[in-house]
């Protein structure tokens, strides 16, 4: 294999599994260390710079970081990253956070941008462009901002105060919020002479279920996302005693738990797939079962049953899932039919994009499935002035993906309006690599690896939790538990950096490494090398770090897969050929805005660089 090029920022970025898996690439170990130091406001700001909604995401994120967490590979459970984020948000000093918000210039730059839909993607665009002097009009059909974060996520999972605070951090920068204004025509928007238009309207159309009885029982059959929205905006405040939910995603989990809080006594979730194959996050399924709501798997809807024109039940075909060798699923009916009594039925079987308000001749090309043609890097549509992001761009995803889209769209808008190329002039990521060596065997990070298991987050007693849809049911970590959990983080951003010239091949590192990551061996092709290491390296999603040739003709090969970042290789190295270096990777925002914590570093190092 060729020697690894560690000067490529993406190499070490990939080693930081959580950050690499996060669509917004939030520097997770960085803020977890700050939580461990009880610097909650700092931890919050590191998050806020990157993902804009730490308090919201700390409760509702889909957590792509957690399955990626290295701890899950060397132990059983990943670090509870999401709940630690919530700790930062819950314990921050509000006044300090307000003081650290970016300053917005009073003198505007003369450019005006429209954001359509006040969800996470649009708010992120506003957050990135307001400090640069843009004037922004934010349109939303509802009375408050937040988009689906407000209409879809029930208050018992995401309290309104948390949502309001983080939406307001953005809108308080001077965004002109045009609420209760539904945009009906793209052409009309284009005619308004905005310099750019960003579409962040989500995927607003809930799927319906056309089985016998649907039309006749329409009064008591609800579309999940519309029903949640009506509850959130208090158009609906009660539901029948017996409720059946159809669907197995997170929306279904939100619907059933909401129903249980506004009058539903017997609430049942039915899903066509197996329990394991349900789309809902495992923790949402657990919370649902924990509230006494049964989930009936392998139930495929058959018909709505009416008596005297009123819904009284639903019947289901019991089905079986089988998978062929390619993992393709086939669902077959067993012949058994089950009937459930219900006074209301809620359909939570997915959602689609819908752009009825974008005219065919608005200069925006549409492709497959009536989706706009949007560039995956620049988020620009075929009309150079119009950008898409969030669920509106490529279909339903999640909040953190919408945020990542928003940052990139903001970069594109800023580049375009400054006459630069949205493709070629995109900024490089911010990278900072510095030794953590403080002295002999002393590091600027807590290198000890602890054996603690994943901590559980506390919940309200069930009667209290179910008493109102506005009481948050999960309490989160107390500060001592948060500390224990924070210490479980392996500090994967503190990289093992190897300097060939210093190595005397004493084997000290190989001997001490608790997970047999390091091998000195003759070089070979990757497949062969992976087999002949001290411990074979079958996980090909993780790279091998290969040195240049050493004096004996061998190379150092490190399997990044199971490294604990404990620093023992560097401690047992007599020549400091190994060094533990902190790698901070940040996604650069519009107008090359770095994160403030990084900015402090740069203020310190810049005079020295100039002197050199």
């Amino acid at each position: 294999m060729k020697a690894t090029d560690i000067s490529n920022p993406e190499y070490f970025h990939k080693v930081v599994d959580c950050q690499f898996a996060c669509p917004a690439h939030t520097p997770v170990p960085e803020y977890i260390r700050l939580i461990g130091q009880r610097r909650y406001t700092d931890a919050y700001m590191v998050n806020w710079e990157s993902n804009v909604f730490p308090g919201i995401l700390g409760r509702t994120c889909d957590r792509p970081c957690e399955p990626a967490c290295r701890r899950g590979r060397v132990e059983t459970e990943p670090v509870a990253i999401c709940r630690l984020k919530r700790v930062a948000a819950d314990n921050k000093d509000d006044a300090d956070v307000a003081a650290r918000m970016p300053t917005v210039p009073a003198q505007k730059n003369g450019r005006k941008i429209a954001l359509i839909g006040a969800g996470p993607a649009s708010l992120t665009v506003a957050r990135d462009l307001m400090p640069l002097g843009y004037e922004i009009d934010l349109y939303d059909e509802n009375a408050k901002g937040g988009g689906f974060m407000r209409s879809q996520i029930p208050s018992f999972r995401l309290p309104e105060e948390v949502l309001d605070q983080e939406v307001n951090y953005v809108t308080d920068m001077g965004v002109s919020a045009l609420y209760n204004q539904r945009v009906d025509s793209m052409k009309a928007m284009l005619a308004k002479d905005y310099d750019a238009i960003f579409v962040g309207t989500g995927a607003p159309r809930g799927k319906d279920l056309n089985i016998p009885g649907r039309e006749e029982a329409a009064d008591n059959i609800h579309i999940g996302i519309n029903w949640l929205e009506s509850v959130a905006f208090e158009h609906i405040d009660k539901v029948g005693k017996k409720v059946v939910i159809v669907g197995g995603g997170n929306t279904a989990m939100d619907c059933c738990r909401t129903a249980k809080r506004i009058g539903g006594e017997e609430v049942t979730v039915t899903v066509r797939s197996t329990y394991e194959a349900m789309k809902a996050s495992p923790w949402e399924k657990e919370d649902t079962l924990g509230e006494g709501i049964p989930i009936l798997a392998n139930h495929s809807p058959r018909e709505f049953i009416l008596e005297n024109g009123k819904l009284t039940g639903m019947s289901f075909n019991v089905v079986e899932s089988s998978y062929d060798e390619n993992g393709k699923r086939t669902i077959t009916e067993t012949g058994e039919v089950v009937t459930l009594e219900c006074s209301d039925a809620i359909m939570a079987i997915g959602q689609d994009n819908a752009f009825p308000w974008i005219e065919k001749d608005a200069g925006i090309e549409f492709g497959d499935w009536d989706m706009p043609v949007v560039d995956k890097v620049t988020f620009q549509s075929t009309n150079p002035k119009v950008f898409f992001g969030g669920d509106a761009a490529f279909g339903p995803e999640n909040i953190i993906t919408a945020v990542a889209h928003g940052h990139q769209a903001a970069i594109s808008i800023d580049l375009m309006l400054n006459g630069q190329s949205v493709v070629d002039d995109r900024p490089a990521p911010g990278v900072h690599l510095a030794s953590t060596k403080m002295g002999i065997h002393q590091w600027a990070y807590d290198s000890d690896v602890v054996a603690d298991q994943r901590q559980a987050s506390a919940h309200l007693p069930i009667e209290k939790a179910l008493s109102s849809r506005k009481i948050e049911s999960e309490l989160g970590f107390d500060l001592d538990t948060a500390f224990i959990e924070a210490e479980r983080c392996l500090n994967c951003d503190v990289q093992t950096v190897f300097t060939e010239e210093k190595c005397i091949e004493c084997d000290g590192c190989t001997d001490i490494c608790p997970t047999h990551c390091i091998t000195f061996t003759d070089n070979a092709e990757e497949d062969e090398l992976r087999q002949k290491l001290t411990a074979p390296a079958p996980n090909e999603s993780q790279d091998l770090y290969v040195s240049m040739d050493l004096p004996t003709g061998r190379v150092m090969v490190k399997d990044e897969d199971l490294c604990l970042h404990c620093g023992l290789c560097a401690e047992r190295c007599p020549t400091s050929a190994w060094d533990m270096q902190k790698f901070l990777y940040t996604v650069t925002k519009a107008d090359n805005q770095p994160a403030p914590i990084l900015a402090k570093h740069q203020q310190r190092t810049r005079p020295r660089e100039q002197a050199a």
Partner: protein
Amino acid sequence: MSYFRPPLRHPNEPKNEVGLTAQAYEGPISTLCAGCGHDSISAAIVQTMWGLSIPPHRIAKLSGIGCSSKSPSYFLAQSHGFNSVHGRMPSVMTGANISNNDLHYIGISGDGDTASIGMGQFAHVVRRNLNMMYVVENNGCYGLTKGQDSATADEGSKSKKGRINPFEAIDLVALALDLGATFVARSFSGDKDQLVPLMKAAMSHKGFALIDVVSPCVTFNNHPGSTKSYDYTRQHVEAGAVVDFVPMEQEITLDQIQGSTRKVDLHNGDSVQLSKLAAEYDPTDRNVAMRTLMEHKAEDKLLTGLIYIDPEAEDFHKMLNLTDTPLNELGKSELCPGSDALQSVNQALR
């Protein structure tokens, strides 16, 4: 500074025949200098004992005084241990060996502990063919007292302060051959591929097995001009009889026979396969061993590998017709046979 190894290990850590992972054979983190060759030897011992599936509590590790003799603290934490007086490990080892023939004995010593203060004890334990593995962690200097030349420092070798050693070195391998050792090997701490099979063979050898391991002192003897540095050793090392240890149960494949030239059976059914330069080399001939050793020395080469083995020799226990049952397992009647037995012994001496 880390005082503890992380509790987490490789999730697919293999288990040996007694169901243990290598972790059961480890010790606490070493406090020797980072990069010390002794730590590599400790790691080789962990690999050896794990690989031989010897339960840790069936092993006794004994040592004298010095950096080398300190190293047993850092491996086999669950084995028996004895840190004896300087240079007197062989005496304590003899006592332990006599009283319990069932344990596996590892003696760890250094060039000072063996070739200076312990020279007399070393000579006699070799002669007696005590059943043990005797590892000399040989760095050619007194690392614990700031790196003075030891008795194994080569003539002409330069100390860290720049002084040239005027004295002839004691070659422990040659000495052991002369004293009638039945298993003599030399290796290098930086070559575990060679050291681990040698250690496995030494542990399976019934009798005294010496492994002289060049183990660089990173702090006081790893500079240009030293003849015991990592670089010098790598440049001058010549693997003589390269050993592959073959446990009894393992079938010897055609491949191994073609690649090797000689197979020596050990007393317990295990065997060693010799390869590479072994083509003209007969490790069971003491004269050949002596001559080859001298030839390599004359050419300024360090001969490593299995240099001599006599798998048939009687060990100390056999020679003196001692009991095979550990003393702690003998009953009162065997230990104190009564006045009649005493009478008959006395009678025999009249």
